[in-house]
């Protein structure tokens, strides 16, 4: 007799008998007010009769995975926001002509928008890379935020939890204050990247010294300590050179106008880190039942945690390197996705990637058009727009829940 045989047949019916009374009682109590969508085949006798005749055998249940509808909706939202961001801008180019020009750039398509070379250059050199960079940075931050929330099983976790922001801030400030020479445009991304990675490593090392078991609570506390410490040094450096404050702050508040060169810098790290994070979606779901239970299921918890933290920190560092410290994306987008599409990390990670991209593209669109030709710092926009948006999502989904 093999295992598969035990899963069906007479013993199953016997096991069912013991609990049917409770089931019936409960169904009777709550059925009138219950949402019919969650268990369409619930009925006082229906489910048990089906169980006995076994006619569900050909329809094994569905596991949480990314459904085509959700994926296509998210891709559509990203493309729509990107298109809107490309069509509108400070320069007064008619949207119709921009659309034609975009078509013309597509392979095998020819259209004549009749744009002047300077306008073409503006689109190609400024607007297009800016939209792409916003999409990449937003996707990285949101995906990394979701991954951190999964690893720490904490809804308040965000990409900057482990000292990435403080490390990058300190390194950038030090560069602005001490570096001599003209080419700070390349030095700042490198310094921010190294600082973010360094901050995370410092927190990770401290956390492992303080709690050798690799528990998440000590890791979070180590992140808090590292953040305070590095921020203190950064503040001290700022005081040394008050005249540089504006440059430092403009970096801290974020900017996705880096152009193709920054996009090239971030692309390889983005690709690798996103691939690792997406591959670990199912394992983050296993981790959500706690370290002990995940270990009892045969999972190497420390290895999963390390791999995901490494990838998420790499994503955060590369995003920070090319855009500064943009807040709010990493914490709001994963929660909005969770509310709208479900809590499995196999859904949350890819949808956060797409949704974060769309969110930051739109935030940047607002940042450069509201006060055009002046620009708002994008970090201001993400928080200003993101907070009400988040409250709206909470309200809408709560109503659907109730």
């Amino acid at each position, binding site marked *: 007799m093999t295992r598969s045989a035990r*899963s069906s047949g007479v*013993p199953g019916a016997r096991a*069912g008998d013991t609990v049917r009374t409770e089931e019936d009682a409960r169904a009777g109590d709550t059925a009138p007010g219950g949402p019919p969508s969650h*268990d369409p085949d619930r009925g006082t006798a229906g489910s048990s009769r089906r169980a006995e005749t076994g006619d569900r055998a050909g329809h*094994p*249940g569905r596991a949480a995975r990314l459904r085509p509808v959700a994926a296509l909706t998210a891709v559509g939202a990203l493309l729509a926001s990107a298109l809107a961001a490309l069509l509108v801008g400070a320069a007064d180019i008619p949207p119709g002509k921009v659309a034609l020009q975009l078509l013309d750039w597509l392979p095998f398509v020819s259209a004549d928008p009749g744009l002047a070379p300077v306008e073409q250059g503006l689109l190609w050199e400024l607007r297009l890379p800016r939209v792409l960079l916003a999409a990449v940075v937003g996707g990285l931050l949101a995906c990394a935020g979701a991954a951190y929330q999964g690893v720490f099983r904490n809804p308040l976790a965000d990409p900057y939890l482990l000292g990435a922001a403080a490390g990058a801030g300190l390194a950038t400030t030090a560069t602005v204050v001490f570096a001599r020479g003209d080419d700070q445009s390349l030095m700042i991304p490198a310094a921010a990247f190294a600082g973010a990675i360094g901050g995370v490593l410092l927190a990770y090392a401290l956390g492992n010294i303080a709690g050798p078991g690799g528990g998440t609570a000590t890791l979070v506390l180590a992140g808090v300590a590292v953040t305070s410490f590095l921020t203190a040094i950064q503040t001290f450096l700022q005081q040394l050179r008050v005249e540089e404050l504006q440059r430092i702050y403009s970096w801290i508040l974020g900017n996705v106008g880096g152009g193709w060169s920054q996009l090239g810098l971030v692309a390889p790290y983005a690709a690798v880190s996103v691939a690792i994070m997406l591959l670990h979606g199912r*394992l983050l779901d296993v981790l959500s039942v706690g370290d002990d*239970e995940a270990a009892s299921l*045969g999972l190497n918890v420390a290895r999963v945690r390390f791999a995901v933290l490494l990838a998420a920190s790499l994503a955060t560092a590369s995003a920070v390197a090319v855009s500064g410290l943009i807040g709010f994306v990493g914490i709001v987008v994963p929660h909005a996705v969770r509310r709208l599409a479900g809590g*499995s990390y196999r859904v949350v990670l890819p949808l956060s990637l797409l949704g974060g991209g769309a969110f930051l593209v739109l935030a940047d669109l607002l940042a450069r058009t509201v006060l055009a030709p002046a620009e708002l710092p994008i970090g201001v926009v993400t928080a200003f727009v993101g907070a009400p948006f988040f409250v709206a999502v909470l309200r809408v989904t709560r109503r659907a829940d109730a």
Partner: protein
Amino acid sequence: MSGRDMGGGAAIRRIAGGSGVDDGDGGDGRDTAGGVEVRDLEVVLETRTVLSGVGLRVRLGGWLAVIGANGAGKSTLLKAVAGMLPHSGEVLIDGTPVRALKPRERARLLAYAPQAPALPGDMTVFDYALLGRTPYIPYLGREGRRDREVTASVLERLDLSALARRPLGRLSGGERQRVVLARALVQQAPVLLLDEPTTALDLGHQQQVLELVDRLRLADGLTVVTTLHDLGVAGQYADMMTLVAGGRVAASGSPAEVLTGELIAEHFDAHVRVETDPWGRPQVHLERPGRPGRRGRPDREDRSDRLDREDRTDREGHPDTPSGPGARGEDPCR
């Protein structure tokens, strides 16, 4: 995928699924072929020795209840057997030392359900049960059709099919316990380790869950090890018992051998009367210390004898029994 059903579980699964399982009330506990054996287990947490010299034997298809006072080390024992705590000594399943197994192989032999399982509120019942397939799914792979089928059939068996798409956050206590049990069964391990499976359940749901475990055990030949804090419940379901006290095994044997007035008084500091029910199982009754029918080897006494005896004089013969003003049960404030 090809490696799914390989590994140490195959031999045991044949045995576990086969015949030769008796009705579970024999309680001889000597035949451990295919069962669980623990030898000289020692667990040191930080610098404190929580368990030492612990030995257990559970025959294939048996139900062992680990009992003991709070803090005696019951849960630690279960976790150590599940391989979740560093320990010395041996844990053998069908003669295979668990220590030698990879975590995934171990998870195919031992399914563990903790006392207070973390149940993510927005995870569906189906997805939660599917987690039991983790030891069969490659590290970065995804579940296959067979994994979904096993999960669906276990849910059906526990009458949870109708709840398959419901989030865990919207289940009642009894449903939750069944869902946790489903996840453990989906693991298809021949040994179930359940830490206090009835905590926080009312009497009726306790009974339903334990009856369910018993039926599954008999149907599949599962070997069940539970910690149970309720001695009356433990006496009704287990066919073997181990009493843990101070990190050591204080007594071990059939429920009737372990659930005696003396042992319970000594290790739980509780006043109980033990009777034998018509099926030969011990029934434990809690007693107020100051009232008639109190302890004093009642399990060896005739009932009428005990009732006739005046307890006040008897109690004075026991120096460890609370008596006089201020003793429990006679507290003037109560």
